[in-house]
């Protein structure tokens, strides 16, 4: 290991609920007191002393340009994860009736086309430092893809668990890296419970269980990058999907840390969250003014965010309330329309979670909950090619023609009249 004491900017773990402190090992809950989640504790004075905008800009074009803010000791596993495009989405903005909209497109994150590559890069780096040779996870699909791929790159053994009914692309996109893949006959929450029991008896590093405090820190980089890509400024409002609620709260932590160490001027950012109606325990609690989650059984096409018992749900509700944001849910039909809208206006093909985010963005604009002039960032966390089942029925068919001009002319005529009909119904 190439680490030196001076390169370590974190000190240990602390319970988010009761403040009890632990060493920086493989544990995720406050086992001595209250079972609250553990978070990494940093030495922000040390980070402030060594980090400037220039030092970050001179770093690698990946999440590791923010290495000082991430809980690792030595060399990272760098598979080029992060620094994905922040698109100014003018056409989508116009369609929605707002002015300053950006899309943070993690659907083209590396290596497996979802934001999970960020968290897994951090988790597996830490897993290696803690001496694990086998890594594992409970996954709704994207995390399985990412864990299997990055484990392959790092030469670690890998066994991952998914619900058996996942989309074909997500199953193939895991198997190709040749891990041991367990398809569990049950929903994600049941998979997760099983994995907790496996974690109890097998000495494996589960990225979202005993490595969770390190893993979840990777999501902060979605906050850092947006600040840097907006020219070292905070946005006014962000919209992100909510599954466990972890990503949402870590984007906020990323913003807060850059303020704390003086990299960006303080500003209030509103946080709004998106859920699918078929799995919306956080949106339901928010709507009813509750600060606790009543678990639900998921039934939605948005499988990647179908977590019925979201561990960070209470924190997500608190964040939306504190910042003047909102949490809303949309139907499966609205999700599909959201996927189409983003593709047709911005050339970005997202999966169902992204469709959920765009549909909720649209809903919040219609409800007047997004100021048309505020700088709004919508987080797109996954790639549409992984969930083609969701849209295959609505994308239409190609015009099959003979290799002759007459055949093309006739087909073009038909296509034009079809398009006119569509324009009339949409009203651009």
């Amino acid at each position, binding site marked *: 290991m190439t680490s030196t004491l001076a390169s370590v900017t974190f000190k240990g773990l602390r319970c988010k609920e009761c403040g009890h402190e632990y060493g920086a090992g493989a544990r995720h*809950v406050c086992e001595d007191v209250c079972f609250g989640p553990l978070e990494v504790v940093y030495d922000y004075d040390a980070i402030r002393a060594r980090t400037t905008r220039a030092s970050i800009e001179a770093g690698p074009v990946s999440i590791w340009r923010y290495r000082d803010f991430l809980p690792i000791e030595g060399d990272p596993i760098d598979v080029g994860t992060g620094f994905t495009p922040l698109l100014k989405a003018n056409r989508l903005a116009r369609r929605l009736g707002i002015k300053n909209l950006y899309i943070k497109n993690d659907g083209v994150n590396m290596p497996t086309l979802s934001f999970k590559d960020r968290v897994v890069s951090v988790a597996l780096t830490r897993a290696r430092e803690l001496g694990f040779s086998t890594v594992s996870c409970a996954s709704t699909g994207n995390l399985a893809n990412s864990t299997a791929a990055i484990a392959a790159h790092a030469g670690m053994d890998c066994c991952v668990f998914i619900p058996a009914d996942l989309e074909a692309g997500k199953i193939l996109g895991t198997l190709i890296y040749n891990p041991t893949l367990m398809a569990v006959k049950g929903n*994600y929450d049941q998979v997760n*419970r099983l994995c907790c029991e496996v974690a109890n008896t097998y000495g494996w590093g589960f990225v*979202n269980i005993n490595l969770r405090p390190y893993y*979840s820190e990777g999501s902060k980089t979605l906050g850092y990058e947006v600040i840097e890509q907006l020219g070292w400024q905070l946005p006014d409002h962000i919209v992100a999907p909510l599954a*466990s609620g972890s990503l949402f709260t870590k984007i906020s932590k990323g913003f807060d840390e850059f303020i704390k160490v003086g990299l960006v001027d303080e500003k209030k950012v509103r946080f709004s969250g998106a859920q699918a109606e078929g799995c919306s325990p956080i949106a339901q609690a928010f709507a009813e003014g509750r600060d606790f989650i009543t678990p639900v*059984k998921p039934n939605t096409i948005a499988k990647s965010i179908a977590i019925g018992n979201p561990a960070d749900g209470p924190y997500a509700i608190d964040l939306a309330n504190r910042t003047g944001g909102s949490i809303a849910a949309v139907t499966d039909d609205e999700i599909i329309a959201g996927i189409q809208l983003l593709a047709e206006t911005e050339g970005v093909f997202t999966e169902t979670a992204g469709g959920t985010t765009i549909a909720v963005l649209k809903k919040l604009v219609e409800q007047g909950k997004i100021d048309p002039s505020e700088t709004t960032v919508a987080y797109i966390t996954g790639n549409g090619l992984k969930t083609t089942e969701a849209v295959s029925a609505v994308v239409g068919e190609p015009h099959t023609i003979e290799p002759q001009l007459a055949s093309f002319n006739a087909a073009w005529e038909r296509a034009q009249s079809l398009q006119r009909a569509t324009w009339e119904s949409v009203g651009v």
Partner: protein
Amino acid sequence: MAVQVLIPTPLQKFTADQATVELEASSVQELIEALDTAFPGLGNRLCDEQGKLRRFLNFYVNSEDIRFLDNQTTALSAGDEVSIVPAVAGG
């Protein structure tokens, strides 16, 4: 009325490293009391000062979350399997 209880690693220090224990109980509430009697101190770890199950702990009876059943008053019968699992993040 013996039920089987799966104990998560962080709590096994109370159960002399046993991952599974068998106890007599006819409801989840009775089980919590029985666990505390058999393994003194464990009750305080499972419940807060008001005697409510800690919000970051999940209880399952035969794989069903007790929040879909009757919470702490959920009835138990002989042969049931109760699993205690700390909440985890996902994706």
